[in-house]
């Protein structure tokens, strides 16, 4: 499977919920799915809670290499520029 992203985890979770609601699974399988679902719910919530906002701007360094540094948009009226 491809690397787990928030999107793929959420898709998987939705699939599990649907499977459980279908009700065709036996109890063991249901429990297995349920626990996977709970794990996914928890890890998705965790991702939402823990991931930080990161805002960066691309600049060229002296050798002409492009790199990214943290960026804060200027407040209105400010005319300061970096470098």
């Amino acid at each position, binding site marked *: 499977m491809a690397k787990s992203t928030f999107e793929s985890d959420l898709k998987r979770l939705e699939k599990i919920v649907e499977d*459980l609601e279908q009700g065709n699974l036996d109890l063991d399988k249901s429990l297995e799915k349920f626990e996977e679902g709970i794990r996914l719910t928890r890890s998705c919530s965790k991702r939402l809670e823990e991931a*930080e906002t990161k805002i960066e701007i691309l600049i060229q360094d002296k050798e002409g290499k492009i790199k990214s540094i943290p960026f804060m948009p200027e407040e209105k009226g400010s005319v300061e520029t970096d470098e």
Partner: protein
Amino acid sequence: MNYNNQLEGSTLGEEQIYSVTELTQSIGFVLEGEFNSIWVSGEISNFRVPGSGHAYFILKDTKSQIRCILFRGEKRFIAFEPEEGMEVLVHGSITVYGQRGEYQIIVSAIEPKGKGALQVAFEQLKEKLLKEGLFNKERKRELPEFPERVGVVTSPTGAAVRDIIKVITRRYPAINILLYPVKVQGDGAAKEIAEGINYFNSKESADVLIVGRGGGSIEDLWAFNEEIVARAIFNSKIPVISAVGHEIDFTIADFVADHRASTPSSAGEMAVKDVKEVKKSLRSCADRMVISLTNKIQNFQENIKQISMKRVLKSPLTHIHDLEIKIDDYQIRVVKGVDLKIREYKLKTNSLSSRLYTLSPSNRINQSKRVLGEFKRRLFGTTSVIIRARENRIKELAGRLNSLSPLSVLGRGYSICFSSPKRRPLYSSSDTSVGDMVDVKLYKGELCCKVLQLKD
């Protein structure tokens, strides 16, 4: 009469005699002096651009025509493409071309009549790209539901970048925004914007792109009407949201982009979901799972009950089994049903304990009391958790749900015996035979066991 004298003297009586070149030069002097920097109105005819890159055409009206030359250097500054039959205003100067005895206009500017040059250029490029299929609906891509990184191509100092960042981070704080700073108007702006789009594509360093700027005049927004930007958007593998100017401003970039936002702020709204909505849907997933599983367990419990009714006295173990499932089931209902009343809890625990007394021998009673005590403890703990849950419901729900899993019963010292290798839970010693391998799942880890003897 001396014929020669007349020629050499260059005068005829009082009158001056010109050579052809002299005359042509004099005419040139008069015309070029008189008709320097003029505007002429007419219709373009016979427009052609040979290899030199200079453009030649005839400007005409119903009765007359005049040759025009538009040199390569000047042609660059004319935004639109002059077309056959187009009514225009031409600015330039008359020159005389002596070798052919012709006069012509050296054109320095052309304006379409009635509309602005930029307007015409806009319509022409729109028409051209439309024909090429750059605006086709079929090629427009969906935006990713949960982008991890949003690439932004705009000015680092404008209001647009502030609005975009503000809206995105407010809606979805778990986000990474990468800004490629560009000029958004003036010389070279279009090239920088296109380079920004290409940069993100070459690095694959964004899941969605926002390309735009705040409002302005058609001249201010012009970079977003240039072909190089349109092509870059078209060629982008990353879906592009255009966000140019205000509601009413439409640019070529808007037509090519996968999605058009009416303002930079609304581009931010398009790019990411509202985290509140996402959390809500996570909650609903958890709720739905609990409900499904509860139903499942209830059905299962029904079955067990029916079987145990028949074998009550023969197999007390079945009762314990039944009881455990029931308790787990109750716990699930407790958490699910926030509205379940304490009195109901008491009723259930009472009837449960009275049942235990009537059914079980003393050691079973002790064991069941322990289980019951555990149940009460959890019940009590859970109700207080429910009150706290209002504040941070999603986190706690997930945590609590885990504790509800019937497998958590293992934490209380029970174990599950599975047939090996099929891993079906064993309910009776008759489910297996001597010499079989079985797996015993404990709270921590598993045991691989061999069956030595079967007992009823």
